[in-house]
């Protein structure tokens, strides 16, 4: 093995901890909240501005709160309250949904057109 080979190995091995720190250490924080209502317009709101939003869904009004770069359902006119029980969302890609009311809330980092493509 030449010295150049050893240098490449050293650089490659040094790169690995950096990758682990970068992608596992600090969880990527989302930038915006995407609120979708079945049959309605999508709403995009910034995560860094605290706000309480009322969204009209199929059953009634869902109340969504943005605070401290987090977002949650406060109330929704459904029976199970799964959306409220989901609690705070703060990481990129996290999602809460109230299916009876047809409202979903997701934290998005970039423009995602779809989750995945399978063949």
């Amino acid at each position: 093995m030449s010295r150049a080979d050893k240098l490449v190995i050293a650089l490659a091995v040094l790169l690995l901890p950096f990758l682990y720190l970068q992608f596992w250490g600090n969880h990527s924080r989302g930038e915006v909240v995407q609120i979708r209502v079945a049959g309605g317009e999508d709403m995009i709101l910034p995560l860094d501005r605290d706000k309480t939003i009322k969204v009209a869904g199929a059953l009634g009004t869902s109340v969504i709160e943005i605070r401290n770069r987090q977002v949650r359902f406060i109330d929704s006119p459904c029976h199970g309250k799964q959306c409220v029980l989901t609690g705070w969302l703060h990481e990129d890609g996290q999602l809460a949904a109230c299916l009876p009311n047809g409202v979903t809330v997701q934290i998005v980092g970039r423009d995602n057109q779809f989750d995945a493509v399978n063949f």
Partner: protein
Amino acid sequence: MKLSIQTTRDDQRIAWLTALAITIHIAEGALPSPIPGVKPGLANIVTIVCLMHYGWRTAVWVAILRVLVGSILIGTFLSPTFALSLSGAVASVTVLGLASRLPLGLGPVGYSLLAAMAHMTAQFFTAYTLFIPHQGLFHLLPILMTVAVVFGLGSGIIANQIVKSTSINL
């Protein structure tokens, strides 16, 4: 009318080496893998040996033909698997081309490691842009890169032994 194609010594060598690479590629495809899509990439040993003995041009032919013919034989031609395979092969031969033109004095181990990492990076971003455009995919990147470094080193050490124990008869 009888049609005959004139083949050069070079063509025949590329054909032989590609056949060897395809055999390894398909044999490896039959091995079970703990993580889907993670393969040792032993066929790349052939690419590295080609680069060391016959130069970059031969290595490119062997790497790209292996991906094409291998995918036709396995039945993944033009599928997502093929897109991933091809992007990886193109990236690794590009990096090998750059590295072999620079006066670095790299050996098989360095080349193999660089190629493996370029291969994985290209595949990752192909997968991210075309098939799974989700931020969550980035959580896999450190693991995939670790695997690439380990297998790249392994393949490089094997290629190093092969290069040392074979002589070139041009």
